[in-house]
């Protein structure tokens, strides 16, 4: 009885404590917000705006606009924490529309929308930055953690992104992109490269997401027909999380248990990755047709072609494992692959204007002895399902290193000129 009472009391205390740390006790740091936001507005090219160590609660978003070569610097990831739990305004935590920006050493969490959005920037460096939502994997979390869009010369490194309801690290409609040494976990999509030209994702870890790394090209956008992407030396592990993205979003189609998905990707190489522990698929090669969505853009190329997949290590999820049944794409694999998870699955949809035995120019060279491959022939009502991989025995040239273009770093003389 006494023990029961003690347990009861301590449970009550725990509940009470938990309620106490609830949002009500958090105070919005308006003075700190005003100080930082004023610095961001008054910044001169070349300025370093430092944010000290500590947890700061803000109710409005921070923004930097039009001033090039500014560095926003915290005391380090997990040391400078900007929390937006009480946000009343703004669709992101930090918004940047300025060239040659550097964001370094801070954490942004619990924003109502995206954590950090950068648009129309030439030159982006994000280093040692963490974005997260602290209440776990919820559909009400913001869409993207790190979100550069319509930008050029983008470097993301040593970052961590988690619990985004769309993608942890998402680079969209951009050119010359490197994402490296970063860790994306518990997002719907770990890392997503969408409608980009010249991108590299390397030495990253994508773990416990719904899908690890996605390379998508979508129609009806200003920057259409993305191409040229390298996915290499990544650890893509146990991405079996329930898909918690609200319906309607593109990533809502991703079946839990997906390592890499190439959707309408062009000129893309996937090599030397460790792809382990997925219940549905290791690598998927799919046409946009598979989504059954419509588009109007006549110049849009919906096919995935010129793909090289080689020298990866595949290790399927062990134990009794059934592919996902929660998403159409997962069901398709279950039905047409005898309920067996696949290392590489191809929808088999090809452009009938092209001919030959390998019309989409897919090259697969893997040394795994029991590699599971299926071409489900989705374009032909699944009539001619193929397991034979020999037809894809070809090689493509490695893609060039992404070289950042002009104006990423502005010379001192130029800074003086701008500040005039």
């Amino acid at each position, binding site marked *: 009885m006494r023990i029961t009472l003690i347990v009861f009391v301590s449970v009550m205390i725990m509940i009470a404590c938990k309620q106490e740390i609830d949002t009500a006790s958090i105070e919005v740091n308006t003075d700190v917000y005003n100080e930082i936001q004023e610095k961001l507005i008054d910044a001169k090219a070349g300025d370093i705006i430092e944010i000290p160590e500590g947890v700061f609660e803000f109710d409005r978003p921070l923004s930097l606009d039009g001033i090039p070569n500014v560095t926003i610097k915290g005391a380090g990831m997990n040391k400078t924490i900007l929390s937006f739990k009480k946000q*009343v305004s703004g669709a992101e935590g930090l918004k940047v529309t300025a060239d040659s920006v550097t964001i370094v050493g801070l954490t942004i969490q619990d924003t109502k929308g995206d954590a950090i959005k950068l648009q129309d920037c030439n030159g982006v460096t994000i280093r040692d930055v963490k974005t997260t939502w602290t209440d776990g994997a919820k559909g009400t979390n913001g869409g993207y953690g790190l979100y550069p869009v319509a930008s050029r010369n983008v470097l993301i490194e040593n970052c961590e992104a988690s619990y985004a309801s769309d993608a942890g690290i998402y680079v969209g409609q951009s050119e010359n992109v490197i994402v490296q040494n970063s860790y994306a976990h518990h997002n719907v999509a770990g890392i997503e490269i969408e409608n980009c030209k010249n991108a590299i994702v390397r030495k990253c870890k994508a773990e416990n997401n719904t899908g690890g790394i996605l390379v998508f090209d979508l129609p009806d956008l200003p920057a259409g027909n993305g191409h040229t992407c390298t996915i290499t030396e990544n650890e893509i592990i146990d991405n079996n999380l329930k898909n918690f993205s609200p319906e309607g979003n593109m990533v809502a189609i991703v079946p839990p248990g997906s390592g890499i998905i190439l959707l309408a990707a062009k000129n893309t190489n996937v090599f030397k990755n460790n792809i382990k522990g997925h219940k549905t698929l290791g690598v998927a090669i799919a046409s946009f047709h598979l989504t059954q969505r419509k588009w109007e853009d006549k110049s849009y190329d919906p096919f995935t072609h010129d793909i090289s997949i080689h020298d990866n290590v595949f290790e399927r999820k062990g134990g009794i494992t059934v592919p996902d049944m929660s998403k159409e794409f997962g069901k398709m694999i279950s039905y047409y692959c005898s309920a067996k998870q696949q290392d590489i699955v191809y929808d088999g949809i090809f452009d009938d204007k092209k001919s030959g035995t390998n019309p989409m120019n897919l090259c697969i060279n893997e040394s795994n002895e029991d590699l599971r491959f299926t071409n489900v022939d989705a374009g032909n009502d699944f009539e001619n399902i193929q397991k034979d991989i020999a037809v894809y025995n070809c090689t493509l040239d490695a893609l060039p290193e992404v070289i950042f273009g002009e104006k990423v770093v502005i010379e001192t003389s130029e800074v003086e000129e701008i500040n005039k």
Partner: protein
Amino acid sequence: MKYLTLIAMAIFFFQSCKESPNMEIHAVTLELDKLPYKNLSEYHFFKGDINNLEANEGVLLYKPITPLFTDYAWKSRFVWMPEGVQAKVNEEGIIEYQNGSVLIKNFYYPNDFAKPDDGKNIIETRLLVKSADKWEALSYVWNKEQTDAVLTKVGDVKPVNWKNETGRAMAINYVVPNKNQCKSCHQRDVVLKPIGTKAKSLNSKLKYSDGSTANQLEKWVAVGYLKSNNAIEKFPAVADWTDENVPLEARAKSYLEANCAHCHSREGQARTTGLYLTTDETDRSHLGFCKGPVAAGKGSGGRKVSIHPGDAKKSILTFRMKSTDPGIMMPELGRVTTHEEGVALIEAWIESLEPEDCKQ
């Protein structure tokens, strides 16, 4: 000697009365190289008691046919130009200004919307000033005493109370935008620009303070603010969103243009979404018909297309218009309440459309 001092003092008093700011009409002051002024009063845009918001000499009232919704705030808008400065309407029907031009916009709440003359609470006055071929956005927040407004860069959150037309007590935390946020809406091709003064939005009759009524474009020409042109014929007026005598579609599209197209256009910040809500957009997919979202996140609300013709409940557009969650709502900035009447209009329009399958 004593008397002399007294006389001198008396004369001094008389003179200071004469020079009291309430008595004297001071011309509008705008020295571009000294901007921004710290206080709104320094510009002398308004005569007499500044909080009457009564236009000074040369400060001309204007009113877009369909305005942007800002949390039910009442707005009064004015344009002012220095001597010899004139705007013109360009080929696209956008008014292009010369340096020195100023657009002035007051945001205020009558205490009782049914009795607008019984006192009001002015929240902020925003200026767009063109100087050295660039526009600058300045926001002035009114003091508690309502005697002047002070420049803010970082914005503010102001509690506001009023009684609406039906007598309902309303209370919100009005958000004054910061300088950067001004630009996120006031933007064409990544450059800060005015958004409200298009020829088609001003091609309507307006009653002026002297009791006269005139077409706004004609009035601008008459006072010398606009180069004489055929804009009235060339750029027909947009529909008044509240005018029940015009077709629903025209009202809805006019509303969407005024409230969404500053970002959702081919030149605006939301061009990356492929959703363009301008009245001249003809591509159905770009207009949102059966169009899936691009980067909506939870903003999709589980709905699959922006506009599901015939079914507002399946349309993302109205879901985001209804929401007040900063991560969901549209527009992203400029409101903390739902514009019930605007939502009702767009819902009615979507419901009226020929139903489609929108197979996804």
